[in-house]
């Protein structure tokens, strides 16, 4: 219980941090360069701190549970927020994405807020069907894929917004420092190309687990169906880009569509679904 309380404090602290970053970040947009850079650096440092705290929180939750913390939707949400932040921080090492910090922190804040207020459940042991090594393998692959898919979606969204603004005359003042449209376009594609095999792996791992737990590797359970739809949508996206040569707006819209099938799967099937992926208490 002590460990668990620690985890809760970490989340509370995390939330406080997440509130702070947008404030810092939005400052950065309007200030002159030197100040903005400083603010952005503070924001990134805070983001890193938040990531570490969240990581500690997730690990604490796992210890308090006595199993990996992926048994219900609260735990998926906090882990998802963790990998989303992680994906952003990793991508940050290669590309200057700090302008995205505002959206990222807002999204993480919303996710954690929802997790703590609506989805919160006490630590609990796993039901027998979840007791399998595949829980770790299948879920971690799915959660990382989800984090990266969403990041690519945010970038595709930014692309569409900036593209329409540029067509209308020019970028708003705060967005002048953002990378060019081509870079955004490429980045969102690279993220998908990088994580699509992982998603494929998550689906295959899920099928192997389903075979040993439910007696069939594929049964068109709603979760499976939507995982398949997401897979097909991203496969279409990759084909459209690589072979047909789609770029820019059309590709960004397709990317957003594919990402929304993932989100739909997570929200709809978990909350209102009736399939075999629904375990007690969400």
């Amino acid at each position, binding site marked *: 219980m002590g460990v668990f309380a620690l985890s809760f404090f970490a989340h509370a602290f995390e939330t406080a941090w997440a509130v702070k970053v947008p404030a810092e970040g939005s400052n950065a947009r309007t200030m002159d360069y030197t100040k903005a850079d400083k603010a952005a650096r503070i924001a990134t440092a805070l983001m890193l701190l938040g990531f570490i705290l969240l990581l500690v929180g997730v690990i604490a939750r796992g210890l308090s549970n006595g199993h990996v913390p992926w048994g219900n939707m609260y735990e998926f949400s906090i882990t998802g927020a963790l990998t989303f932040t992680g994906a952003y921080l990793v991508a940050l090492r290669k590309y200057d994405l700090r302008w995205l910090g505002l959206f990222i922190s807002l999204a993480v804040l919303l996710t954690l807020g929802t997790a703590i207020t609506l989805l919160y459940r006490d630590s609990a042991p796993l039901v*027998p069907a979840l007791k399998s090594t*595949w829980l770790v393998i299948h879920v971690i692959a799915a959660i990382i894929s989800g984090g990266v898919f969403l990041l690519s979606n945010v970038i595709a969204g930014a692309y569409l917004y900036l593209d329409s603004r540029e067509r209308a005359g020019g970028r708003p003042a705060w967005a002048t420092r953002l990378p060019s449209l081509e870079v955004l376009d490429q980045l969102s594609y690279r993220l998908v190309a*990088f994580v699509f095999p992982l998603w*494929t792996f998550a689906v295959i791992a899920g*099928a192997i687990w389903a075979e040993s737990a439910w007696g069939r590797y*594929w049964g068109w359970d709603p979760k499976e169906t939507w995982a398949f739809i997401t897979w*097909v949508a991203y496969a279409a996206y990759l084909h459209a880009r690589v072979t047909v040569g789609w770029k820019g707006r059309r590709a960004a819209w397709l990317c957003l569509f594919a990402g929304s099938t993932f989100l739909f799967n997570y929200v709809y099937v978990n909350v209102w679904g009736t399939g075999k992926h629904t375990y*007690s208490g969400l």
Partner: protein
Amino acid sequence: MVSQMQTEVPEIGAGGLARFAWRQLTSMRTALILLMMLGLAAIPGSLLPQRPQNPMAVRQYFLDQPGVARWIDMAGGFDVYASSWFSAIYILLFISLIGCVLPRTFEHFKAMRALPPVTPKNLERLEAHSAFVGDGNDLERAEKWLRKNHFRLRIQDGSISAEKGYVRESGNLLFHLSLILILIGVSVGSLFGMKGSAIITTGERFINLATSYDSIDYGKLTNETSLNTFSIKLNKFVGTYDPITNIPLDYSAFVTTIDELGNKRDQVIKVNSPLTFGTSRVYLQANGYSPFVTVRDEIGNVTFQGAVPFLPQDTNLRSIGSIKVPEATPQLGFVSSFVPTYERDPQLGAISVYPLLLEPKLLFSIWEGDLGLDTGIPQSIYKIDTSSMTRIALDSLAPGKSYSFKGGSITFEKVEPWINLQIVRDPGKSYSLIGGILALLGLLASLFGRRRRIWIKVDASGRAEVAGLAKTNAAALEEEMVCFVSAIKGEK
């Protein structure tokens, strides 16, 4: 990824239409549209209840909205994944895929055996071009470096062409061929597989014969003669629950099995660890309680004796069931419920507060009359049609106790757990698994492989020129060229 597939076929008059249709079907654009359609077509199946997964919900849908349900049913909406239109989409997609991938595979094999193209005249026009004055041994060093890095070479007089990265196309083809293998696995499974379930109470033996099953479905090309012989005797079933939240922690069924060769073994079935007999696997699917009762008539003759599986209604295993005694005159029916840990709720009546047998109780009302078993209409084993019966008594019993009523008595001897075994044979699943793994490997190779060509040319004056051509990721080629040039110049 499947690109440049427009196989140029010269126009021939006869059969032109068929050729046209084939070319349309195997074009990239059609494949993409079919792929998107497949995704969209899968959606209704996740929103509407599906017959194979949830027949009860389909029945309920028919009761709630009979008009709409009839239309949906005609369109195959309650069994989307077996409907003709869903099949049409994926069959067309796979034909398109085969039409695309097979010719490409042959081309790729040819390309892999062929030498890289001859060095072009003007290297300046290509990417990552650079020139420097060499020392006469540049070609040797270049060849050494290229060989070390596994390039395919064409040595010419004064120049070398090198190519690398066929793995991209190989991976691409492997990925698409593996998808076909997965489809074959699925088809084999649905044609030659079988799936059934059976309830056995502790102490009972299940023998793998068609008559032992409560329900059984065969693939289209198989029947009961394909069942392999094995038997499973349930010795003990142990459910473990969290004492505070009542959440199940573990289910273990301790069984003695005899396989085809007659080997006798003690094994344990758990939720995530099924038993395997050849190509058949046996899963622990559900569990519940079977009260063991004896019913006697007025003079003490036994009219019914045995274990009756009851159907659990909630997580604390409050269960309902029926004890039918057609041998009695008049016929008797006990509309019953069973609770493993009895508690009285002011609103709900008898409830169970824990899933283990702490205070088991059998509650029943006794009905006399016609059970309706001879009407030929199939009946649920858990329910009694009391429309032509009258209720004569009402009581509850603890194990070991008896109750006497007008016309006989009932004894609740004991209660034992039952388990529901699901027996599945899927001979296609190993194909699907191999297909899945190969698809993943192919995907990785095709997404991260880079195909590129490098040329080096040294003219009579000793001036060396290098250049490259990358199909993807020009930046990585630039880096590689820097390494290449420094290797030629002899810088480590």
